[in-house]
């Protein structure tokens, strides 16, 4: 009825990148929006702090009820969201958050653990297969998301460097597969003794795997990575032994839980201040899990 239409809450969901992770977050949000009968306004800040502020401004002017956002920066995004909060909009953050207590709820996967979880897997590999000694190259994403990058890299390094025989010989930056394939290719020619590459996101991991294959070093160099995707799952199932393990997040759940939190707050229900979803480790030792993941992904992305 008309009354229902008027009462229909409007919630803005803001992503910051056009990749698979945020795509699935969005699907999660849509799913929850359907379930609760709210209107979802979708937006993407495309990694630009300036565009993010503009979007928030527009939603303030447009009087949405809630904003569910993955802020670009813990510090730089504070002021616009504070303004939104002050104009009566409910703020929920996911994936990344801001300093202070503007958001009523925060749904995340633990960024440090995303690195650390793979770091543990890598450490086990080094101990078992390489006798505790390894030369490691790290591919970060600091020029895209410096704060997240630092946490993931920190998590990974803290685990892997527990082995005294491990040396990190190269640290470069690449967040697209196309960039990573070149950088890792270069690293592999320069440092012939590198035997482990770890990358901080999906693009970096894909690029690293392809670079190892292209350099004909499959079997001699192994890759550990972050995020999960169909292509990464296929790499894990591939018998070339390149990609060993990735730690992925649960984007669909993050999206739906974040939106759900916003709806609950609008309905006056209590919510958790912070929800931490664990990373999901997939390794080539457990192909069954990898296949399950693929099936689920296919279902979600329909």
């Amino acid at each position: 009825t008309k009354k229902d239409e008027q009462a229909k809450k409007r919630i803005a969901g803001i992503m910051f990148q056009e990749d698979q992770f945020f795509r699935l977050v969005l699907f999660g949000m849509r799913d929850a929006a359907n379930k609760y009968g709210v209107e979802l306004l979708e937006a993407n800040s495309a990694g630009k702090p300036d565009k993010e502020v503009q979007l928030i401004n527009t939603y303030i002017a447009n009087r949405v009820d809630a904003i569910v956002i993955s802020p670009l920066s813990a510090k730089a995004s504070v002021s616009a969201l504070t303004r939104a909060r002050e104009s009566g909009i409910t703020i929920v953050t996911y994936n990344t958050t801001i300093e202070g207590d503007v958001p009523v709820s925060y749904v995340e996967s633990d960024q440090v653990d995303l690195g650390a979880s793979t770091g543990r897997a890598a450490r086990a590999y080094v101990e078992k297969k390489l006798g505790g000694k390894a030369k490691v190259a790290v591919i970060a994403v600091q020029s895209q998301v410096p704060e997240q990058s630092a946490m993931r890299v920190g998590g990974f390094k803290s685990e892997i460097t527990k082995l005294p025989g491990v040396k990190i010989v190269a640290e470069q930056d690449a967040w697209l597969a196309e960039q990573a394939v070149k950088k890792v290719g270069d690293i592999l020619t320069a440092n012939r003794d590198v035997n482990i590459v770890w990358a901080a996101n999906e693009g970096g991991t894909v690029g690293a795997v392809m670079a190892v294959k292209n350099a004909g070093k499959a079997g001699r160099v192994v890759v550990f990575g972050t995020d999960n995707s169909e292509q990464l799952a296929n790499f894990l199932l591939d018998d070339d032994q390149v990609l060993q393990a990735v730690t992925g997040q649960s984007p669909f759940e993050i999206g739906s839980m974040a939106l759900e939190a916003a709806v609950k707050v609008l309905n006056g229900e209590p919510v958790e201040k912070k929800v931490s979803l664990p990373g999901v480790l997939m390794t080539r030792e457990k192909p069954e899990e990898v296949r399950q993941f693929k099936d689920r992904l296919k279902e979600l992305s329909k």
Partner: protein
Amino acid sequence: MIASPKLRSLLSEGILEIILVLFCIFLSFSAPGFLTAGNLLNVLRNVSMQGVIAFGMTMVIISGEIDLSVGSAVAFAGCLTAFITQTLAGDTFGLPLHVAIPIAICATLTVGFFVGTFTGIMRTKFQVPSFITTLALMTGLSGAAELITNGFPLTPFPSWYNFIGGGYLFGIPFPALIFLLVFATLQFLMNYTSFGRSVYAVGGNAEAARLSGIDVNRVKRLVLGTTALLAALSGIMQSSEIMSGTATTAKGWELDIIAAVIIGGTSLMGGVGRIWGTMIGVVFLGVIMNGMTLLNVSEYWQHVVRGALILVAVLLNLLQKGKSQR
């Protein structure tokens, strides 16, 4: 016989304005909340940071040059302001913020102006195309911004600093006022000062301008310097809006800004263009952006629609112009 060419010329001179108005009328009916004072002021606020640079860029392009570094310059200026503020207000100097910030702002504007002048000198002394110098600056300044912030946003600003980019004066967003002020100044400069006319002459035929006794090199230096100064100003406004100096901000602005300038009828060949046209171009892009957000157009379609609208606007403009010339 008298009225008809007049009408035609109005139509051809004003076709962009007409397209913009029609587009706004369309949005008023289709987009919820578009036609409210709040939203329109919001559009003005959203375009103001790119806008102030666009006016400078108009001068640069009219003078036959280009500046690709403005996006990075914005990021750099924001970071520099934050960095200087942080340093001056830090333990070593211990200045109070209301002293440190004005110093930081002045220093940043000065640095901005000199960066632009550097491009100008490379161009006039060594014949390095401004495209190359500013392309180099584009990556260089963004590296510099990352280096001084070490990659993390700097947040030394007190809450009153937010006024520049987020405040209101007489109910109008303060950045929008700055935007209008810059517009008025450059509009005046280009049409009523001999400097402005020299810019047209230099872009239209640099050799003829030189032979007429115009100091071509000085004009180019000043134009590039002013635009870099405006980019620095924009960076300060931006840092105030997001209350931090962030190195990743304003990526890709250069192309948005150049697009606004060209939509406004300025020719990349130099010598032709109007500040007012740029105003229309800037607002046009701002309205597209705002309208699509309000209409909840999905991100992917936004890209397609934005491209199509830019093309259609320029095409209609040219078709109308072409017709009126025949």
